[in-house]
């Protein structure tokens, strides 16, 4: 397995010197994200997130399967992550690295374990037929902060996705094609997002304040390889913490961590608003001249009750 190239001595010194003068190499503020862009595919459930040079594409697909025998009322929801050699030479096909393991665990805990997707709503016939929703996360380009970017792309894709409408009559399920009936959105209970904080030891000479470590948000690949520790906090915009993972690394004061959660809330609100805005723009783009609305309203009027 080819090893990741470590940053050179010069790069390290330049970075730490800049940091001691409160400057990041790309000139951003310490708590500033890189430019975030979100594009949707022509198909439902394709979201392409770019965070600086990091680019993550998520594709949601749905199919009808039978549920697990111990959970007859719950649909299936799986998140698969793929870090291909295209992303970085240190990733190999079919051999998950630690990065990939932690990424998939983090997404699992943030989105699946916090029950962002209501799996009970995916049930068609109890114990026999359920929807299986699968989110395929493809990292197209990696320049740090994969977790946050992947999380944004999954949440955006889930909101953008429409599953085919169905009707049940007795034991039979009819799945309507997109032409027959307007597909329906997934039922999402909340929209959790990750924010990763990277910690750096305070500059050696210091400002005499005895202040703690430096905290950076949305780190690039270089910054990430030089950090002493990190914490990933997942929250939704209602202020519920879904997951915190500080898996070792440099020890950080408890108060700093609490401060991080309040910073995370601000960032999560910003990103949520951005995703919502983009989704609305997207739906307006597809809905030419508001025709869709009149079509839908006439269809609803036909259904009795």
């Amino acid at each position: 397995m080819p090893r990741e190239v470590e940053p050179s001595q010069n790069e390290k010194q330049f970075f730490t010197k800049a940091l001691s003068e409160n400057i990041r190499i790309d000139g951003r503020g310490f708590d500033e994200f890189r430019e975030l862009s979100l594009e949707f595919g022509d198909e439902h459930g394709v979201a392409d997130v770019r965070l600086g040079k990091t680019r993550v594409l998520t594709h949601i697909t749905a199919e009808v399967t039978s549920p697990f025998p111990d959970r007859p009322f719950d649909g299936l929801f799986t998140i698969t992550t793929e870090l291909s050699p295209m992303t970085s030479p240190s990733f190999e096909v079919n051999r998950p690295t630690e990065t990939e393991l932690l990424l998939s665990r983090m997404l699992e805990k943030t989105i699946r374990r916090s029950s962002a997707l209501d799996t009970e709503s995916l049930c068609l016939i109890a114990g026999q037929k359920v929807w299986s929703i699968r989110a395929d996360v493809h990292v197209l380009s990696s320049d740090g902060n994969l977790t946050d970017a992947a999380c944004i792309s999954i949440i955006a894709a889930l909101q953008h996705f429409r599953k085919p409408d169905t009707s049940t009559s007795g034991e039979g399920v009819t799945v309507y094609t997109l032409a027959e009936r307007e597909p329906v959105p997934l039922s999402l209970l909340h929209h959790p997002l990750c924010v990763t904080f990277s910690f750096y030891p305070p500059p050696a000479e210091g400002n005499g304040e005895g202040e703690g470590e430096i905290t950076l948000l949305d780190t690039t690949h270089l910054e990430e390889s030089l950090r002493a520790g990190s914490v990933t906090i997942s929250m939704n915009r209602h202020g519920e913490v879904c997951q915190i993972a500080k898996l070792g690394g440099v020890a950080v004061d408890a108060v700093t961590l609490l401060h991080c959660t309040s910073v995370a809330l601000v960032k999560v609100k910003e990103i949520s608003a951005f995703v919502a805005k983009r989704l609305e723009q997207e739906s307006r783009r597809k809905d030419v001249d508001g025709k869709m609305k009149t079509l839908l309203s006439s269809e609803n009027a036909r259904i009795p009750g």
Partner: protein
Amino acid sequence: MPLDTSTYSLALLRLDGRRWNELRRLTAQISTQAAADGSSYLEMGNTKVICTVTGPAEGKRTGGAGTGGGNEAEVRVEIGIAGFSGVDRKRRGRNDKRISEMQTTISNTFASSLFTHLYPHSTININIHILSQDGSLLAACLNASTLALIDAGIPMRNYICACTAGSTSSHSANDEAADPLLDLNNLEEQELPFLTVATVGESDEVAVLVLETRVQMGRLEGMLAVGVDGCKQVREILDGVVRRRGKRILESAAV
């Protein structure tokens, strides 16, 4: 089935009769395994863990493939969960992600608290066997590893002490009256939001913080404060174990 939350509010006693800020019985022994360089056996209530440390030794994999080829020792952690340790006998695959994540956590924690730069090109192996599970699993593993590493005589900055803290509130309710709880057992862990926290010695510096359940942001401060406080209690107990062991060695040497 919120059986804990419903009974708790009446008597302020938890399922096992503890108050909110009480740890379970925490006992530990050092040097339990003769073959290992360092070993420990730790019980946190009904969670029982054996930990052995081998090394620092020359890494098995040569050629500098891993990080062990560098100027610092590599910390490798292997966790084995006994089939009889839980309520149901579940076969776990070799690459259970939850276990791998715990291994990574423990390895990262000790990589920054041990003086790894004293042992270049070598590996420190931590083997953890879980004999019985009843909540606070990660915390028990961290505490047992600390003791085993002390027994192996590997220099470290300070004790890594860990415990769990929970809250009686559910994630949706924004009840201000919810009490934080210390050191949860398995039943409580399944029902209540909880976090695992590990601190460096007596300080408030948090080395590990893992929260996997949904909880209101307002509850976090209380939980963290109780957790950090619990870690200080754990440190006292671990320190006692180490000192007792030291005293015994001195006594046997004097005779």
